């Protein structure tokens, strides 16, 4: 897809590895090396135990719908209304909420709180020499698959 005038993410030093992973179609989260708490967006300190040691770990890509909006007013010519933005609680830890586009209905009629969803990736065309970029597009979880178990 092309961003066509849409805002590009203002990638910075903390977030660059997360965006680079997303461009590889990998969803990652930080995890505290001391207390194993997940966190996102990227921050140097664990806001539960205060430790500075952490690592990037792969996330399952599963989650549930926390909320969503249906944009009707045109806030920007770059986005054709109606369109949906979802807020997803990631499966690893339900107090981590991540945004994205919605692969389902443009009026959100197929959404409800708690709906199981999986992450997908939209590649964005970038200028030659720029870092590759992808954005999140969440989709309904396949009905015959089980969400990841786990801690």
């Amino acid at each position: 897809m092309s961003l066509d005038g849409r805002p590009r993410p203002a990638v910075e030093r903390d977030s660059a590895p997360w965006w680079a992973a997303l461009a590889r179609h990998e969803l990652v989260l930080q995890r505290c090396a001391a207390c194993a708490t997940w966190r996102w967006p990227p921050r140097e300190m664990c806001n539960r135990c205060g430790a500075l040691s952490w690592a990037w770990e792969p996330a399952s890509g599963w989650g549930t719908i926390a909320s969503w909006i249906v944009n009707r007013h045109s806030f920007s010519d770059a986005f054709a209304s109606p369109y949906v933005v979802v807020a997803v609680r990631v499966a690893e830890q339900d107090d981590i909420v991540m945004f994205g586009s919605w692969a389902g209905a443009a009026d959100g009629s197929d959404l409800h709180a708690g709906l199981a969803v999986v992450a997908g990736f939209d590649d964005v065309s970038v200028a030659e020499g720029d870092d590759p970029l992808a954005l999140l597009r969440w989709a309904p979880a396949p009905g015959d698959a089980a969400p990841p178990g786990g801690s």
Partner: protein
Amino acid sequence: MSGAHPLRDRAAVAGVGWTEYSKWSGVSTLTLALRAIAAALEDAGLTHADIDGVACHRVADSVQAVVVAQSLGITDLRYHLDLFGGGSCSASVVGSAAMAVATGMAECVVCWRAVNARSEFRMGGTGRPAPDTVEFQYQAPYGYATPPQQFAMYTRSFLDTYRVGAEDLGRVAITQRRHAMDNPRALMRAPLAMEDYLASRWIVEPLRLFDCCLETDAAVAIIVTSAERARDLRRPPVLVSGAAFGSGHNLFSNHRGDLATTAAAAMAPRLFASAGVGPADIDVAELYDAFTPLVLQQLEDYGFCGRGESAAFVADGATALGGALPVNTHGGHLSEGYVHGLNHLAEAVSQLRGDAGVRQVAGAEVALSTGQPGYVAGSTSAVVLRSDR
């Protein structure tokens, strides 16, 4: 801590000033600020030479505080606060000014908000510069950026959790419109019926047009000085009885997964303790209302009604003039105009002076004025004001 809170009733509002509200001021935010400050000085019976402190909040949409200080001719500025933030900071500006006065850092601090929020910088508009937040990168590429979009995301969670419906939001807008009809300053004074509300266009579901505040060109100024000095001035003092700052949360605040409760819930006990009052002592409440659901949520989070009971509280007429707790007696941001919380503080002062005309809450002695309750911004604030009787 034993004894009264050290801030309690030490500082007072001595003057209030407004510019005209419009969709096109035709002047700079500096000019708006100076006009509102001049009106507040006149109200207080003070001159610009009496001011030794300045305090404002803004989001890169208004003139710097020190430029206003220089324009007032202050050569020995003793207190300055130029706070980055929107309505979450409105009450903290006045609370900070009260602290500066109570500690003796300054004698007379002018607080203001000056915005061309309609004709220059539209919070909900296009061409808006990126806010000063690292979190914007995770939202903006999806077309998720403006306040109505962000508040709509929380609103759905509140509506789902407490089974609040469109008509419950509509009653907030209608109640406040009724108040604005008696307010000559208000931009929206035509009657609003439920069918008008329900027929208004979607902005971003679940918010309709009449759930959203009015982007306005205006300034409001408030002069804070010591209670002792205020008693010698032109108008009856309105005491800053208590103030509190709170920790807001947004969708990036890990470990705060409850999207339906605002930061006011945790702050309210501290605020009321600072003033030595409880919710039952509040005679009139000016609650930050960038969007209708914030009023319902604050009624619950400040303890005026139980969890999930705010819609019934409003439907029963409690928040209307003549009700148990009149709310947003000026019409609020929804119908008076959007001056980022300073107009709520000014209305509270009018009510406690007995100046509110046909909108007057009989015998009003204690008022609550709140900032935006903490979504998006990561902070909130509120003050309790009291008449000096």
